[in-house]
């Protein structure tokens, strides 16, 4: 059994921050869960989808997008069921409209919104701090500082939501979502959550005219009730100390601050740990500021805590100097070393020299090292599509890329995405460029992103007669975020058939006149299909089919074929035209010193996925495959 479904209260397991969030929700009696996957928050959904056998009364869905997911969780809450919706930080932009009404209607079953933040944008197109949303959605925010607290706070958030009649946000940055460590489990509820029942409540749910104004007032009153109670809820904590300079921080940065103070050899610094970062406890922060001569606010991005606490200090007549964003940058991730350096400066205590030896050495050699970028996996259908697309369309067209694994198309050697902003940015902005220029526009979108937000844009292009070629790269999975099923997933990993959406049918139904399909791995055929499409005008859609190689490989491990194929480059036939090595740039193709002292290209059998693309594109028929028997066990 999945240890996260274990009934054993007190059991210690190894869990990821995201998994701890999922467990906390299960301990609170979660009845409804919805999400659109997005790094770093995806694994919350992986857990809750995976434990449905142990929790048959839990409804857990992967929604079409965050907007739908948030509306779903709100509806289930109105029906009296404890509900949770998770998303990555930029997903909140998509969910923003329903979340702005959730405070107006209030909740019936506790409603928790989990946001995975990505300061440093290591897997995102932006690093926005979603905490600022709460200044107008008025949703309270909890910020756990470690894995254990991620579970405890998520569990508690449901009760807080019901008490204060507001959805509650749990905000966790990527370094907590993807922190793996020991977690002590709590008790699960004695029985399954009861079925919900929706009771109409016209005053709360019909936000029209004066009722909307009244509901806005009730939302603010609920918030004030919470603001008055915060000091008594035990969500914030002061670590006392006799020092004259105090630190105020929240979430993950509490752990960084404690460790930084240890590195700096300081044990007398008082620390105010904020657990509820919206609304801040006005009396608590004013009292803490009043007790020190100077305060340092340690937080990431644009200074949400500092913004609030300066207001409260002003109201309370406290004039203690506060430093925050003039010390710590407003962009990028604030890790343990940035916190240590900042506190060293603020507290006048240098970082011990022994700690710097490695960093100093790094600074002298870093310039000698080549950068390393991500690449498509060996066997990835997107590599083949990029290759064929460049062969057919060259560098003279405008490339409108989008969000997904194929975002890697922006990198060399392909560089077939001229912008990347948000979901559906390719078709969305590409059609406008086609309307106002004489350039040919080719847009790329994955199956999941197309269903997330691409459908209205394609319809828009048809309705307004745009001149656009759209390639829908159907790899059958939401691959980038950990292989959640997409609407086009037709076979699961154990070989089971699944009812998939007819993608070509959907596209035709939108009124697209030219719709064709092609196989990604047949690069030559694909190139010809793209040439055909480029010769036409109007809205054209080419559905490029090729399953994610990681998933088909996993299925093959579970459902093995009777023989394997072996792909190799014949050095006698290879003319070193570089098409496979540089233009396709598959990691399974390497350059090695050959027997005659000159370099040759070889295929690393251990990495090769036998997709056959290099074989198809080689102009010298130097790449061949043969059936081989599996090597006997040693």
């Amino acid at each position: 059994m999945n240890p996260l479904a274990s009934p054993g209260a007190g059991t210690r397991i190894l869990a990821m921050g995201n998994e701890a969030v999922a467990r906390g929700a299960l301990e609170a009696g979660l009845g409804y869960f919805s999400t659109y996957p997005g790094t770093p928050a995806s694994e919350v959904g992986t857990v809750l989808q995976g434990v449905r056998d142990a929790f048959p009364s839990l409804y857990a869905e992967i929604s079409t997008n965050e907007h739908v997911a948030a509306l779903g969780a709100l509806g289930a809450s109105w029906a009296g069921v404890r509900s949770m919706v998770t998303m990555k930080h930029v997903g909140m932009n998509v969910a923003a409209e329903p979340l702005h009404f959730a405070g107006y209607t209030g909740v019936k079953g506790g409603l928790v919104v989990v946001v995975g933040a990505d300061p440093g944008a290591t897997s995102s197109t932006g690093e926005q701090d979603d905490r600022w949303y709460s200044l107008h959605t008025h949703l309270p925010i909890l910020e756990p500082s470690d894995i254990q607290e991620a579970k405890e706070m998520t569990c508690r958030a449901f009760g807080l939501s019901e008490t204060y009649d507001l959805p509650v946000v749990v905000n966790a940055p990527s370094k907590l979502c993807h922190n793996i460590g020991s977690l002590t489990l709590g008790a699960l509820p004695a029985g399954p959550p009861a079925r919900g029942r929706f009771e109409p409540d016209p005053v709360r749910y019909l936000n029209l005219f004066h009722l909307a104004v009244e509901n806005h007032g009730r939302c603010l009153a609920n918030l004030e009730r919470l603001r008055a109670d915060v000091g008594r809820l035990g969500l914030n904590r002061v670590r006392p100390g006799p020092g004259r300079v105090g630190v105020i921080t929240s979430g993950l940065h509490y752990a960084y601050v404690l460790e930084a103070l240890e590195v700096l050899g300081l044990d007398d610094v008082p620390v105010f740990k904020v657990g509820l970062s919206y609304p801040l406890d006005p009396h608590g922060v004013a009292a803490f500021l009043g007790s020190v001569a100077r305060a340092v606010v340690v937080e990431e991005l644009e200074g949400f805590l500092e913004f609030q606490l300066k207001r409260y200090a002003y109201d309370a007549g406290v004039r203690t100097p506060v430093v925050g964003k003039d010390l710590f940058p407003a962009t990028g991730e604030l890790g343990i070393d940035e916190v240590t350096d900042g506190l060293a400066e603020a507290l006048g205590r240098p970082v011990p020299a022994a700690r710097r030896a490695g960093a100093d050495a790094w600074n002298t050699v870093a310039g000698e090292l080549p950068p390393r970028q991500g690449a498509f996996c060996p066997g990835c259908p997107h590599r083949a599509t990029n290759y064929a697309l460049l062969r057919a369309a060259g560098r003279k067209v405008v490339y409108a890329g989008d969000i997904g694994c194929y975002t890697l198309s922006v990198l060399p050697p392909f560089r077939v995405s001229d912008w990347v902003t948000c979901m559906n940015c390719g078709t969305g902005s590409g059609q406008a460029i086609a309307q106002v220029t004489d350039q040919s526009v080719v847009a790329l979108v994955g199956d999941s992103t197309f269903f997330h937000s691409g459908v209205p844009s394609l319809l828009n292009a048809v309705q307004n007669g745009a001149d656009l070629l759209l390639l829908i790269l159907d790899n059958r999975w939401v691959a980038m975020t950990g292989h959640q099923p997409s609407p086009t997933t037709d076979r699961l990993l154990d070989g089971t058939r699944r009812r998939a959406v007819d993608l070509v049918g959907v596209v035709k139904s939108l009124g697209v006149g030219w719709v064709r399909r092609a196989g990604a791995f047949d690069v030559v055929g694909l190139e010809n299909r793209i040439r055909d499409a480029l010769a036409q005008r109007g809205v054209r859609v080419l559905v490029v089919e090729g399953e994610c190689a990681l998933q088909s490989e996993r299925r093959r491990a579970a459902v093995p074929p009777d023989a394997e194929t072996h792909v190799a480059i014949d050095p006698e036939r290879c003319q070193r035209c570089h098409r496979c090595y540089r233009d396709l740039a598959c990691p399974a193709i390497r350059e090695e010193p050959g027997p005659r002292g000159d370099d040759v290209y070889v295929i690393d059998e251990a990495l090769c996925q036998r997709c056959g693309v290099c074989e198809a594109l080689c102009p010298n028929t130097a790449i061949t495959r043969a059936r081989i028997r599996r090597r006997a066990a040693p």
Partner: protein
Amino acid sequence: MRRCDVLIAGIGGQGTITLGTLLKLAALRAGIEVTGAERRGGAQREGPVTSNVRYRVPETGQERAADPAPFSGLIPQGGAHLVIALEPLEAVRCLPWMNPNTVVVAETAVRVPTAVRLGAAAYPPVDRLWAMIRQVTPHLHPVGLESLSKERFGGLRQVNVIALGLAAAVGDLPVDDDALLETVRERLPGFDANRDAFALGRAAATR
């Protein structure tokens, strides 16, 4: 309280995070507090991936605190006791976390970044990379993990277990071989080969 911080570095697809998870599960088995953050980016191949493994071992006779203070998932600069690098360039990228006592276990087989493949950058000679590390710590153990695995097991499946055996031999880990091997048995398929791989890694340390 004894601490031991292990930084693991590799590239997407090499099993860096799985290796970290094995080291953490072994701690749980031994009753040791453990945590550590990862940098995983998307599910992409070939990009740098790191995993922090941070142990907190109570001194003999010391009870685990009822409410232990949180400890962060990130190893501070200069704080790594052990670095396990699955690629030479990625070993050098761990320099900021090394100090003169840091033990470094590093794969010798090169994975060429795309920029080098395209001729836009050069991959420094591997000996030059080792010299960069030796500027900070003399405790460097370069081993051909991939070639050992291919030679003995006919593929790359055992690379990380060989690395684990090597780390156990030279890393002064707070988890013993039994805890590591039991974890491997529980989590990975093909225990007989993995037990041999672990021993092969241990033996590689003394070569």
